[in-house]
């Protein structure tokens, strides 16, 4: 390559080589010229080869450039430098053109050719160098691509890790959310459990309260709030057990209010109930806390004195209660006076069990009533005999109706002036097969107690009407027959219908029937009483108030009710000649009756003096033993033949 470089030594030693100097340039031999030309052609050819390689290098650089562009934008700078190289090559070409012009000067051209060769060599070297650089850049580009790939892999790895972390976080978040929901559900469950438990507690408490209330109601009297029969029985059993163990006594008192029924009937159940409540309070105030006062029902109370030293202790308690009860009771504007009869039994003398003790006290109480009421009686063994008799009467009464053991007696009512019989009062008697003739006072209260009063009353009514009709049919003096009517009969729903049916069946005109009713019967429930009385009056039945003056009558009702007759109670008549007050009462009743256009008849006239006094007070009619005792129907028929009592005819 470098063998054509200007080298003086090589020029001198190489005779085969033409020597060209500047002085001989214009005179160069043709061979040399040819040689130079050939060499220049060679140079040109070399240059073209170089150019060709450069183009190839440029193409490869372009390829590298394309690759570099994908890897890094900085490759553009290299491309710019490549452009500069091309520019410099263009400059070299220009200079080579100028060398052609300087061909005239061989040396110069030769030098220039050598120079160009050298430059061409240099360019070749530069081209090789650029090829090397291009290769290096390609390697660098590959390296960068590798690095880029590595970075991408690293990024993908990081993305994978991030995805994993996100998944883990999501799982944790899910778990946390689930835990919060779980806590909320637990709280809600607790809330429901607490509320349900509290509600259950409330319900259980209400059930227990209801049980307690039921238990209380089962053992206490609703009206007075006193222990009832069941609780008394329980406490009495316990007291007996204790007294037995300790060898002590206890007392049972059976109490029954006197004539309570009259108050209940006359003033109504409301007043009666309040009176019972008042009595209960009084009794409670008389006993110790350890004693038990109970209501047996109706107007009956039983007191248990669970511990007494002596029977006299019970007597003291009884006296205390008698005094307390007898004080007036203020009820609905009324000052009510009531008394109580008390029977006392002592454990163990009068009974060793609860039932016997109560029964003994009850028996003693009846004796207290029969002894005038408002007192107390200790049980005595012979009382049992009477109690047995009472029980026997009740059993016999039930058979008496079937066996037709009842009979009616008739007591005349007399005109005090003329002695003429103006009517008769039918009075029931019981022709007992063993006891003989039994008066109504001995069995009517028992009949009322056991409910037999209704069928007995119906029998009396029918029998009296039949008898009156028989007398009329016998052409005897037609008289009015009076029948006593009890409260139970008067309040019976079939009462009016029974009257109508009986009158119709017996063919007795209603004007010959008189019903005698007590004040207590009339004054109770005045509205319904008024209705029944007017129905009876419309029917033509006469009405009389029996035992007038002993009950509670309202004067306004007396005017309002269709009453025909007032019967002055025998208690006033009996004492009217010896007691001015009674005489005054009798006189007042007579005057009032006449003023109200009522008939007035005196009951229980037993002496001529009483009869005379009644006449003096302008009483028109009388009835009593003085005139005539009650007679059987046949005996009365004899009297009715004349119609006038013998005592008046004498």
């Amino acid at each position, binding site marked *: 390559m470098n063998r054509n470089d200007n080298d003086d030594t090589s020029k001198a030693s190489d005779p085969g080589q033409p020597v060209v100097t500047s002085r001989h340039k214009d005179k160069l031999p043709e061979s040399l010229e040819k040689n130079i030309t050939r060499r220049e052609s060679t140079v040109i050819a070399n240059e073209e080869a170089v150019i060709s390689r450069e183009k190839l290098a440029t193409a490869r650089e372009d390829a590298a450039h394309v690759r570099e562009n994908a890897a890094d934008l900085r490759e553009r700078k290299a491309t710019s430098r490549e452009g500069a190289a091309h520019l410099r090559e263009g400059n070299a070409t220009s200079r080579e053109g100028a060398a052609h012009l300087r061909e005239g000067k061989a040396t110069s051209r030769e030098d220039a050719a050598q120079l160009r060769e050298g430059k061409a060599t240099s360019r070749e070297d530069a081209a090789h160098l650029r090829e090397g650089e291009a290769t290096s850049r390609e390697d660098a580009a590959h390296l960068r691509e590798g690095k880029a790939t590595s970075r991408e892999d690293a990024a993908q790895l990081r993305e994978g890790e991030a995805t994993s972390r996100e998944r883990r976080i999501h799982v944790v978040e899910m778990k946390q959310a689930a835990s919060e929901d779980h806590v909320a559900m637990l*709280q809600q469950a*607790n809330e*429901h459990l*607490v*509320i349900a438990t509290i*509600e259950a*507690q409330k319900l259980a408490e209400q059930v227990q309260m209801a049980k307690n209330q039921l238990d209380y109601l089962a053992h206490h009297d609703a009206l007075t709030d006193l222990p009832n029969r069941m609780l008394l029985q329980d406490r009495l059993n316990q007291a007996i057990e204790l007294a037995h163990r300790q060898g002590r006594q206890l007392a049972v008192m059976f109490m029954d209010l006197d004539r309570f029924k009259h108050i209940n009937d006359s003033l109504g159940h409301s007043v009666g109930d309040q009176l019972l409540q008042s009595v209960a309070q009084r009794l409670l105030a008389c006993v110790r806390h350890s004693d038990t006062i109970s209501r047996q029902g109706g107007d009956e109370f039983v007191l248990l004195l669970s511990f007494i030293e002596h029977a006299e202790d019970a007597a003291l308690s009884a006296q205390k209660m008698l005094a307390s009860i007898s004080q007036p009771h203020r009820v609905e504007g009324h000052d009510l006076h009531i008394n109580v009869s008390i029977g006392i039994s002592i454990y163990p003398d009068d009974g060793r069990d609860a039932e016997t003790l109560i029964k003994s006290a009850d028996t003693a109480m009846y004796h207290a009533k029969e002894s005038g009421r408002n007192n107390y009686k200790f049980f005595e063994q012979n009382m049992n005999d009477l109690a047995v008799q009472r029980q026997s009467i009740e059993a016999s009464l039930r058979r008496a109706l079937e066996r037709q053991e009842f009979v009616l007696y008739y007591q005349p009512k007399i005109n005090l002036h003329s002695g003429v019989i103006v009517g008769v009062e039918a009075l029931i008697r019981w022709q007992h097969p063993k006891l003989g003739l039994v008066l109504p006072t001995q069995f009517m209260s028992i009949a009322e107690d056991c409910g037999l009063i209704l069928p007995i009353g119906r029998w009396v009514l029918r029998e009296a009407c039949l008898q009156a009709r028989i007398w009329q049919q016998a052409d005897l003096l037609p008289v009015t027959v009076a029948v006593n009517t009890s409260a139970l009969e008067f309040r019976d729903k079939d009462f009016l219908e029974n009257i109508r049916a009986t009158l119709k069946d017996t063919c007795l005109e209603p004007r010959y029937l008189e019903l005698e009713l007590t004040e207590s019967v009339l004054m109770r429930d005045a509205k319904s009483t008024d209705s029944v009385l007017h129905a009876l009056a419309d029917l033509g039945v006469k009405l009389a108030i029996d035992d007038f003056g002993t009950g509670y009558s309202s004067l306004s009702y007396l005017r309002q009710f269709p009453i025909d007759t007032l019967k002055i109670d025998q208690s006033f008549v009996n004492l009217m000649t010896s007691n001015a007050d009674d005489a005054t009462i009798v006189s007042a009743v007579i005057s009032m009756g006449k003023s109200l256009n009522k008939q007035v008849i005196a009951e229980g006239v037993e002496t001529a003096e009483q009869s005379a006094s009644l006449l003096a007070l302008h009483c028109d009619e009388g009835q009593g033993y003085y005139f005539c005792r009650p007679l059987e129907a046949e005996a009365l028929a004899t009297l009715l033949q004349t119609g006038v009592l013998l005592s008046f005819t004498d």
Partner: protein
Amino acid sequence: MENSSLLRHQIINNLMAQHTEKIADAAINLWEQMATQIISIVGEGGFNSLYARSLFLTQSTFPWLSADSTASKTGQRFAELKKSFEGQSPVQVSEANSLLLITFTDILASLIGEQLTTSILCSAWGNDASDGSGKEFKHG
């Protein structure tokens, strides 16, 4: 169980005895602290049910106690109770609130047990409880 129950009662009595002035405020404060703890466990409804029941039972001893059990919002829940306290003497307030708290915690203990009840009170009243009783809560 018996000792723990007595301790709980003693703590309540001692807490109430600590305050002689503004006792109504102190009483309401105890209720609010306890309510926060209990509501987090049994909810508003559960607390209100327990509270209403306790009041009902305590009213038999202190009839002047009253409360609007429907006022469930914080700050209003015990307004009526505080109003009741304001008309009473400090001694009456102390006795009534002690009984009310004891009744409340008795019912709670009957539902969830003495140990858990005591633990809740410890959380609610913290140092006040242990300082007041002179003893520390012993669970179990």
